[in-house]
């Protein structure tokens, strides 16, 4: 039975202003987690924030049972989280949700992440044994870039974009992706980058764009969605996301049916 866990924090450090990386020890989570899943954290004891906060699993070490999450200090909950120190206990439930679809058939994969959306993609790259792994990651500016080294380490090619051009490609990561994909499309296999599947996580408009590009190129595409959650385990139906279904649509649960969905399911404007 999955449990409400109290796990020990190993470190909790600020990577760039406002973005933190937190490691904890959890045999339970580390041995079960699959890329795309999340943990749901009670950021403070008591009533100051009551709902748990979902954070994607960013990296796992199955040998020493460490799990890493990374988060932006956004509001009350993550502010409490940011105050935690090594040795403190983390009250969490997880791993929760479904995971990215992986298959031996995918010889070449790409991940496209924007901002804090990059974190679950790192875990995916780390775990994925396929032949070629491309990483497109976008940040607002040079000062917000996190985990670049980790992405370098576990991808075969890394493409970086910043909105203000302070590092890498200037513009949206989707523009960078488009440039590469379309180039390839018209002039044939240039960089050896032909993807069997693209996994995306980031702001909704970004993921929409990625899916559109992937569709155009006939590449499979999965996206990882966000929604405000109640229970995180599939019971309350708070975390609705609109998915197409037999010409009609209905609401699925981001926490249980997701957070990962096939691009074609998702109603990106819903």
């Amino acid at each position: 039975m999955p449990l409400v866990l109290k796990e020990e924090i190993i470190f909790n450090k600020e990577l760039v202003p406002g973005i933190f990386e937190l490691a904890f020890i959890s045999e339970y989570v580390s041995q079960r987690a699959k890329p795309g899943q999340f943990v749901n954290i009670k950021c403070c004891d008591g009533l100051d924030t009551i709902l748990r906060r979902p954070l994607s699993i960013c990296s796992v070490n199955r040998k020493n049972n460490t799990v890493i999450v990374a988060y932006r200090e956004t509001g009350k909950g993550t502010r409490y989280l940011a105050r935690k120190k090594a040795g403190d206990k983390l009250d969490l439930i997880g791993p929760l949700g479904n995971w990215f679809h992986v298959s031996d058939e995918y010889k070449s994969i790409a991940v496209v992440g924007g901002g804090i959306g990059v974190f679950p993609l790192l875990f995916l790259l780390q775990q994925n044994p396929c032949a070629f792994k491309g990483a497109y990651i976008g940040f607002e500016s040079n000062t917000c870039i996190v985990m670049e080294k980790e992405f370098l380490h576990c991808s075969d090619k890394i493409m970086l974009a910043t909105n203000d051009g302070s590092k890498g490609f200037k513009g949206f990561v989707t523009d960078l992706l488009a440039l590469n994909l379309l180039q390839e499309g018209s002039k044939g296999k240039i960089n050896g980058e032909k993807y069997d599947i693209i996994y995306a996580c980031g702001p909704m408009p970004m993921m929409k764009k990625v899916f559109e590009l992937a569709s155009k190129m006939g590449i499979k595409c999965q996206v990882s969605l966000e929604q405000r959650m109640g229970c995180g385990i599939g019971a309350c139906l708070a975390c609705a996301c609109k998915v197409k279904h037999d010409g009609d649509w209905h609401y699925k649960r981001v926490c249980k049916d997701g957070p990962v969905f096939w691009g074609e399911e998702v109603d990106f404007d819903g």
Partner: protein
Amino acid sequence: MASSPGSNGKYNGKVNGKIVSLNLGSTNPGNINLEVEIAGIKFKNPVIAASGTYGFGREFAEFIDLGRLGGIAVKGLTLKPRKGNRPPRIAETPAGILNSIGLQNPGVEGFINDELPFLRKCNTAIIANIAGSTVEEYCELAEILSGTDVDAIELNVSCPNVKEGCLAFGNTVKGISGITREVRRYCKKPLIVKLTPNVTDISEIARAAEINGADAISLINTITGMAIDVHKKKPILANNFGGLSGPAVKPIAVKMTYDVAQTVKIPVIGMGGISSGEDAIEFILAGACAVMVGTWNFVYPDACVKVLEGIIKYLGIYNHKSVYDLVGKLELN
């Protein structure tokens, strides 16, 4: 404050500032009778999962043995499947949450075919919570469910989150009288009427339900509220308004439970912000013979079990032999 004989666990803690140490079973020490009877149904203990916060039990079955619960009130059911409201459907507020799920559910037939068989195997009482837009819909729901093996039917006349709203039935004496009377004619199961707190005088509403055939009252449903994202200058909920629940509402719920228990003779099920055994005891002292736990299930999926354990601990510490030793035993100052 004697320790409860027959128990095998251990309790070290404080009662009224004094440190006490006593042995106490982690489940029910043999000689405490936790059973409560509501409208002829026997609940093995007074802790019931509140409607809409427990789905149809499946997800929680991954965390706890559902057989430990007194009962489960399932997600509100409508005649046809409902898609529910646009997201975001939830917002956190001080010590509470606002929700506007909008009664997303598979419809009563979907429930009977796909959910009830699983639930029936769980060895706990099953309460079907129903909601409609017309009296006829409620009656039809009650009739259909009367043909199943649910243990009781809970009339949700107070859901604030749907436009065609059932709230209208719940906030006037006339509305509640009419719907209770009609549904009673079709309902062959014990009928629990669940009250909305969004009224001037909840006692008169409760009495109207009693007079018109309710077997029990449950309260409170959520309180209408709104939270605004000041940066977007829009409500956080896509539905704009929602229902407030969680610890924040507890003092309001306890007062209303007290008022209703003072007014009606039928059993009262209390809820609103319960997150511990002591919270539950407040409602029981105020006159409820059972409690429902809602929002706290989101925070701790084993909340119902923890509340039950807290009740048992309390009964043990004060050497009570039965839940009924406490029901309505509040002494006013």
